[in-house]
């Protein structure tokens, strides 16, 4: 009775659908548990007025809804300071990572002796665990024992060592350089340019040699071949990298926290969220900061999609 009866109730298409749902159920479950529920919790915390100790007793019915967390964040100078730092960090790392990766990929395009070794070496920063990378940088940049400061004071004749990771503004003549911020940006470029390099190299290997040959026969010089043949082919991959890279940089926490703990004008939004949570034990405020980050990224993502669609249509 069972099998035949069930078979008669569900059409073949419905059964296929059911199978589909069953097979994808684990992923829905995982997404719900590790993304949707925590995200909803963040939204609730951001709009609630509560003390940390009250979380245990919180239910949806008893929450004291309030915009206080956002009002406090948006009216505080540190929020806008952190936002400015984050935008500067994200923009410059994105430019550096993509620019650096593309340049190196183009430079290593034609085979040369030792190409494999050089390529592999270039990937080391990307493969290195972030804690190892930051430890190396911290050691090299240390004002007392660091290699760079020893070289600077003994060979280049600097008067005093430079505290690279804690100096907010370094004066070169009359120009102030945001020293610590520059260092964390350079670190990210050093660490992540290989990622761009990998993607761009893969794409370059698919650029048909005939196209360039044909252009050369038609009298195009090397620069023209690069700007008119090769670079346009990289547009799609670079646009995708641009989006990914900006989002990742905007949210970056690990490198910055491990290098400076947010000192010297490197307190980006992610570090600020962490400090609101641990130093001030203020979950509501941390959630509000986090949500603001999400909104900003969402706006950026939508803007990116619109620009991209318009260009593709052209």
């Amino acid at each position, binding site marked *: 009775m069972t099998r035949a009866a069930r078979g008669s109730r569900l059409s073949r298409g419905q059964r296929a659908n059911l199978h589909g749902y069953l097979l994808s159920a684990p992923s*829905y479950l995982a997404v*719900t548990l590790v993304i*949707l*529920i925590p995200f*909803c919790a963040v939204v609730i915390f951001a709009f609630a007025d509560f*003390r*940390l*100790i*009250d*979380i*245990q*007793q*919180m*239910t*949806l019915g008893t929450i004291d809804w309030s915009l206080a967390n956002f009002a*406090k964040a948006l009216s*505080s*100078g*540190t929020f806008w300071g952190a936002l400015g730092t984050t935008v500067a960090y994200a923009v410059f790392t994105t430019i550096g990572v993509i620019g650096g990766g593309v340049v190196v990929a183009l430079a290593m395009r034609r085979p040369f002796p030792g190409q494999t070794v050089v390529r592999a070496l270039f990937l080391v920063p990307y493969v290195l665990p972030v804690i190892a990378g930051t430890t190396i940088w911290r050691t090299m940049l*240390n*004002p*007392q*024992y660091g290699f760079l*400061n020893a070289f600077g004071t003994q060979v280049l004749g600097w008067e*005093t*060592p*430079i*505290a690279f990771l*804690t*100096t*907010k*503004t370094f*004066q070169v003549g009359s120009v102030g350089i945001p020293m610590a911020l520059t260092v964390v940006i350079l670190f990210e470029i050093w660490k992540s340019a290989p990622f761009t390099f990998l993607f761009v190299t893969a794409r370059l290997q698919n650029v048909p040699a005939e196209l360039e040959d044909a252009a050369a026969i038609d009298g195009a010089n090397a620069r023209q071949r690069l700007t008119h043949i090769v670079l346009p082919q990289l547009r799609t991959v670079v646009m995708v990298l641009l989006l990914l890279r900006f989002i990742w940089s905007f949210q970056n926490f690990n490198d910055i926290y491990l290098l*400076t*703990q947010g*000192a*010297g*004008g490197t307190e980006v939004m992610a570090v600020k969220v962490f*400090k609101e*949570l*641990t*130093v*001030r*034990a*203020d*979950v509501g405020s941390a959630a509000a900061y986090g949500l603001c980050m999400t909104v900003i990224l969402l706006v950026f993502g939508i803007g990116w999609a619109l620009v991209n669609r318009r260009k593709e249509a052209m």
Partner: protein
Amino acid sequence: MQVNRRITSAVGLTLTAALALAACSGGGDDGDGGEASGPITFWTPHVQPERMAAQQDIADEFTEETGIEVEVVAMAGADQDQALVTGAASGDVPDVVLHAPDLSAWQTQGLVDSDAATAVIENLGADTFNAQALDIINIDGAYQAIPSDGWVHLIVYRTDLLEEAGLEVPTSLDELADAAETIRQEEGITGMAMGTQVGTPSATEAVESIFQQTGCQLVTDGTVQIDSAECAQAAGDFATLADSSAAGQFDVDSARSTYLDGKAAFFLFSTHVLDELAGLDDDNPLTCAECGDNEDFFVENSDFITVLDENNPAQYGTTLNYVIPTGANTEAAQQFVEYMLSDGYATMLGTAPEGRIPLRPGNADDPTQYLDEWGTLPMGGSDQSVGDLYGEDLVTSLGEGMNAVSRWGFGTDDAVLAGETFAQNVLAEHLDALYSGTDPQQVVSDMAADVQSLQDDLG
């Protein structure tokens, strides 16, 4: 579209269920908090293996006496912040935490059981504690924790170098700055070694330590005072002291190794350095040229300034306090803390006597019992006490020094503001401008503006 709606409603349901579950389990957890004899968890910031072993021994003795099991967990101060926040959110808190007095954030979020702490203090007798230490952990008129021990900052100096440069022992901050500058110019080595790295906790400590020497205050009765003339004067001296470094900006570790390398004349550090100066700490070996022949070089050629300026006897220091979190196994936790401050006290202080001056000097029967015992405790795995090495005078002045421990805002209504200013290194962020030659009055005005905006943020 229909699928989407179904998913949305499913998510909604799951979420409601999850919140309801969390609420229920929250209620259930209270059950195990109430059992008086259950095992308790103790977080200690003394994480070095030999100190852990000593604390485990005390805990075992306590278990033998009371039948209450104790799990001793090694957790540094900064990790405690993080772990207590996540623990409180999930209802899993330790029962006793040994922590610095920056309790304002925890207190604001309701994480601290001040009734439990007050009961312990009253039971042991509030008059058996160091009054200053009790003031420091008093927020909103209630004790937030039970003081255990503490350390103060000392200015260590090289008697031989001062003599060589023809310098008197300084008795004010101005004189100290001048002396450090002279050393730098005449001897070519660092004048003052102290935490000066912009925006770091090391520099935050040094700023509070040095600025107080002119009577500078961060905030009094809710009014930010860091832009006062005293503070500007201190800032100017601080810049001179930082500039007297021959090795750039220091953190506490590099400041210490510079002094132990014989490359600094003055050195600002906590009492923790007393064993290291005698070469008793393997982790911080003596590396100076003279030390090879003479292990006692620093003991013989160092002296200490405890109170720099008699007019402003304010010593930077900190205390460690037993915090009983809300939701802890209160009764057992209280018993444990009382044991740690009586029968187990001397052993606990003995893990590092040079940096752990008792804040409960004695009990009702003998008001100085623990202070006296502490004076004879051997340092750093040796058989020598502070008194043996440096003389009884230093023991007395350290014991008394705990009465001069002064921290900006602690124990007043401004504790939250002072705590946040400290935790976020607000003042130390401005050292950058100070070092690059900005007028000290301008720097302290900028500091004041930042503290003011922090005060506005805190509401």
